[in-house]
């Protein structure tokens, strides 16, 4: 897994509640058996009109948000299906960090397993950021995971919470299977106790 330490990048706004994983990556793209290359299908039904011409009404298509690596959005982002194709698509598109007032549980976990950082912020902070992002072209934030803070262009900083174990894994890009395998003897002992031969 690729590590996540600090990130400075353009912030793109996605103003919608309950964005579900069917919107993040529609089902027709789940038929692929690869793990990469999903970025071009991200938000497909919102992003494109007939014939795959970019939809000018979809905010992420605005040139000012080109190259964005931080997604700013609203409550319950990533609800619905467990498809890990959702974080794969966001990551492949270039998003490494997502800011929202709340996330759906499975999606939230899937992000960490792909070296991405979803951050929960108070709703008022999110609303303020929406205002600032829209008001300033090229608005960038710096996300500092070791210090658990987000630094605004004016130098002001916002503290955030992150699970200490998930933080440790992200900073070091740790492979969770490898971490668990360290405890192989304990798994074997548990199986023996349960009679799982």
């Amino acid at each position, binding site marked *: 897994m690729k590590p996540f330490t600090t990130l400075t990048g353009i912030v793109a706004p996605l*103003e*919608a*509640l*309950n964005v*579900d994983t*069917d*919107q993040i990556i*529609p*089902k*027709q793209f*789940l*038929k*692929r*058996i*690869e*793990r990469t290359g999903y970025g071009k299908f991200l938000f497909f*039904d919102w992003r494109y009109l007939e014939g795959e011409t970019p939809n000018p009404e979809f905010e992420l298509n605005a040139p000012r948000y080109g190259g964005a690596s931080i997604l700013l959005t*609203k*409550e*319950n982002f990533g*609800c*619905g*299906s*467990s*498809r*890990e194709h959702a*974080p794969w698509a966001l990551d492949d598109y270039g998003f490494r960090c997502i800011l929202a007032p*709340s996330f*759906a*549980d*499975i999606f939230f*976990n*899937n992000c960490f*397993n*792909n070296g991405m950082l979803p951050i929960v912020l108070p709703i008022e902070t999110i609303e303020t950021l929406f205002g600032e992002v829209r008001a300033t072209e090229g608005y960038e934030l710096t996300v500092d995971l070791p210090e658990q803070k987000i630094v605004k262009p004016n130098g002001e900083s916002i503290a955030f919470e992150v*699970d*200490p*174990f998930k933080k440790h894994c992200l900073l070091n890009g740790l492979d*969770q*299977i490898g*971490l*668990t*395998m360290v*405890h*192989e003897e*304990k*798994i074997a002992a*548990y*199986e023996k106790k*349960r009679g*799982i031969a």
Partner: protein
Amino acid sequence: MAKNIYEKIWDAHVVHAEEGKDSILYIDRHYVHEVTSPQAFEGLRLAGRTLRRPELTFATMDHNIPTTDRSKPIDDPMSKKQVETLSANCKEFGVRCFDMFDSRSGIVHVIGPELGLTRPGMTIVCGDSHTATHGAMGALAFGIGTSEVEHVMATQTLLQKRSKTLNIRVNGSLPNGVTAKDIILAIIGKIGTAGGTGYVIEYTGDAIRALSMEGRMTVCNMSIEAGARAGLVSPDETTFEYLKGREYLPKDQSEDELVAEWKNWASDEGCSYDKVVELDAADIQPQVTWGTSPGMVTGIEGKTPVLSEVSNDNERLAAEKALAYMDLAEGLPIQNIKINKMYIGSCTNGRIEDLREAAKVAKGYKKCDSIELALIVPGSQQVKVQAEEEGLDKIFIDAGFEWRESGCSMCLAMNADVLNPGDRCAATSNRNFEGRQGKGGRTHLVSPAMAAAAAICGHFTDIRTWEYKS
């Protein structure tokens, strides 16, 4: 100390716990399907790993497979490849796979309980958010991502944090015609689509106890639509009766011994929860969703919202967007909404009892002329055979409905069963998200009885006043 069922299952499955880290939780059963597994198998291959316990893992193809003639090849080359990839992976890694020609095949969440692979007290995972279905059996079952699928394959464990517990008590008894689907939709309407986030739900109360296993599976299935990863029901006589004689029960114990063990998993008298929500079953009307999130739901006597009456800005914005997508006016009575398609099936409502309820309504009626397609898709091949033995298929065919092979079908429309733009469908599935059943398609979630009645009338109608023909 009195424990609830979640605490009992959790405590019995912790392999290793360390302060400040996620616990290592043992997984008793891993279900696998073709969509969320290929990258996990590939990961194992690249790392030179194998499955730690292939005998605890069972696979089936359900998302992509056609519901029409199975003797013909799958038209879509990508679907075909994904299905073939699962077969090849199962062969290579030694996993039992019920392929689409197997009489035991079907939607993974229908066949697990049906085969007796899902049992009380188990920890069960699958790369699918509707894994919570298995919770009806008194198991801790939840959906995981593909990285976690690979983790379970390699270690038979998962890194987990203990959840908070939410007790949803449904008191009293349901009015006639009101079903398990209406209970869970009413719950989601009450607590919201994020109301269960961070919790494992235990459903209790007289109305839950009175449900069949099929009904309990419908309720637990949609726990994820309330934001909860898992939802479960403590096992009781209904559970034990359902499980008796199932094919994959352990052979080294008698049924009495098994039942004695299973009983111990039920929540103790006097146990506690982090949060409790109560509903009165008598207040629940047949439910219909009007929007693009399962929480956008109301009773059959209700109307679509009037935007000026929605006080929260974000919710008003969401309702406005949903009504526009659904092409519905504000304040429109639900019974005035006309449909042109109907779909009965899915892991939510594709079991035998669901088909019986729909057939009871359809018996002696014909679908309305304006209905272009009324699709009945059994949840498994075993459900299909049983329904045919009971003559349900004939009732559906006589009504002008189509009778298909099993699979996920139009719930998520990964196969050829897709809505066209502008179609409006009464569906017994679990998600009414934009485009879920096909780009530009509009989905209204309802119970099987309500779906059948809507196909006959051409619009939603109150099933509580239905005239049944015998």
